[in-house]
């Protein structure tokens, strides 16, 4: 149901923006089904290669694409949906909003599946934003992680309750403070929203500058 | 060059204990690719390009001003080719400041 709530937010956002030419690209893992249910052009790629994406935390493989994509600022509005583990793990998790900001994303937000209205709003804003936007939607990882971690395995509701009790909206928080720690509150909000020329703008400008009227714009 | 340009406003108290080191530059000419880092950045202008070609067709440096070397080793650190290094002449360390 909670994956669904993210899709519903996406669908609502699409409706609200009234955009017609939208492509959704998703990757393997939990989100695999998502792209299947939306009535827009959908691409379901191999793991980690989404780039312009609606992806699970296939970050393990997609990182360099994500980083480079942010650096190039492709004109896309990807939303990243994170199912994060809460159990004690020797690996420290990424602070996705901070990484996204550092790589040059123009729009960065984080919401939990509970923050439906805010999430819808952010997706709509990101879709209308020119450039690389990232929305981290924190959603319950069904049985697996919750169970292992001692959060009662039967209760998605309890996990949602957990979000309710343990999240805090703070738009102004510097991204370096957004690391998720199991004994701290999850800070949600819209953290980055600024303007930067997109990759295609930069491409066209530079080549027009150098080549003058010999340049045939890429369409 | 230190000898000519440095003037102290007072004589250091430990002047008789400190000996200004005298360095000796060693160059493996055929290893040099003529980048010029050592010639440019030697603080005492010890080195100069030679006119000769080495085996690889470059002009290696030569020691133009042997006495001026204080053995700081910057040429050694900057040389990308491991072609130049300095040693300190223990016996020849001069007390040039006293002169």
């Amino acid at each position, binding site marked *: 149901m909670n994956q669904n709530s993210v899709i519903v937010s996406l669908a609502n956002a699409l409706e609200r923006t009234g955009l017609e030419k939208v492509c959704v690209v998703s990757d393997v893992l939990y989100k695999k089904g998502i792209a299947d249910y939306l009535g827009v052009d959908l691409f379901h790629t191999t793991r980690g290669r989404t780039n312009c994406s609606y992806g699970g935390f296939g970050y393990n493989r997609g990182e360099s694409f994500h980083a480079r994509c942010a650096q190039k600022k492709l004109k896309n509005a990807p939303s990243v949906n994170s199912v994060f583990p809460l159990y004690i793990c020797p690996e420290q998790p990424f602070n996705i909003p901070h990484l996204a900001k550092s790589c040059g994303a123009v729009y960065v937000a984080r919401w939990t599946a509970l923050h439906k209205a805010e999430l819808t709003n952010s997706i709509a804003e990101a879709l209308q934003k020119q450039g690389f936007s990232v929305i981290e939607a924190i959603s319950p990882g069904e049985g697996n992680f919750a169970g292992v971690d001692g959060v009662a395995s039967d209760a998605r509701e309890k996990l949602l309750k957990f979000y309710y009790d343990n999240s805090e909206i703070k738009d102004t928080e510097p991204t370096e403070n957004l690391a998720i720690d199991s004994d701290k509150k999850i800070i949600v909000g819209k953290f980055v929203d600024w303007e930067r020329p997109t990759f295609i703008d930069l491409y066209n400008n530079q080549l027009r500058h150098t080549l003058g009227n010999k340049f045939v714009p890429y369409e | 060059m230190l000898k000519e340009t440095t003037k102290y406003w007072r004589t250091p108290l430990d002047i008789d204990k400190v000996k200004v080191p005298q360095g000796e530059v060693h160059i493996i000419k055929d290893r040099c*690719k003529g980048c010029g880092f050592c010639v440019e950045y030697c603080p005492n202008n010890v080195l100069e390009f030679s006119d000769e*070609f080495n*085996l*690889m*067709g470059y002009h290696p440096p030569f020691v133009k001003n042997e006495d001026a070397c204080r053995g700081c080793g910057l040429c050694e650190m900057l040389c990308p080719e491991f072609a130049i290094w300095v040693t300190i002449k223990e016996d020849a360390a001069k007390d040039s400041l006293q002169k």
Partner: protein
Amino acid sequence: MGKKTIGIRFAGFGGQGIIRSGIIVGRAVSIYDNKFATMNQSFGPEARGGACSSELVISDSKVLYPYVTVSDVLVVMSQEGYDKFEPELSEEGMLLIDEDLVKPKPPRGKIKIFSIPATKLAEELGNRIVANVVMLGFFTSLTKVVSVEAMRKAIPESVPSRFVELNLKAFDCGYEYSRKQKC
């Protein structure tokens, strides 16, 4: 040179324009002298300073085997190149060297050696990067495998436009040098 297929090798360091030498002669021969010329290159991973050579096979018909195994002309601008490629030079071949950079052994068989201070001449012209083109002027005059006219057309197409004049000057310099030396 009455042979149907002629193998030419240029050898030196990366950065001396060895590969470009092959391209210029190949272009002159195949586009302006209407023969077949296949150029191949072999180089190390380094851009400059490493051993570098280009080989050119010139023929009246399509070149089937693209490499030079026995060269008829060897143009060398480094000792290393000389040491490596002198043994593959035909006993009746011609050896062209930059005299400041290559110290040849006494010639084998009927090998003829021609020397020119190409790098020094190029430095005198203002830029050592045209040493290869000085060498090409020398080469054109001595070997006659390519016409002067074809070379003068091929050079401007093979170098950056701001260096065309310098390169043509370098070509003439090498060409004249051989005539002055009467070699």
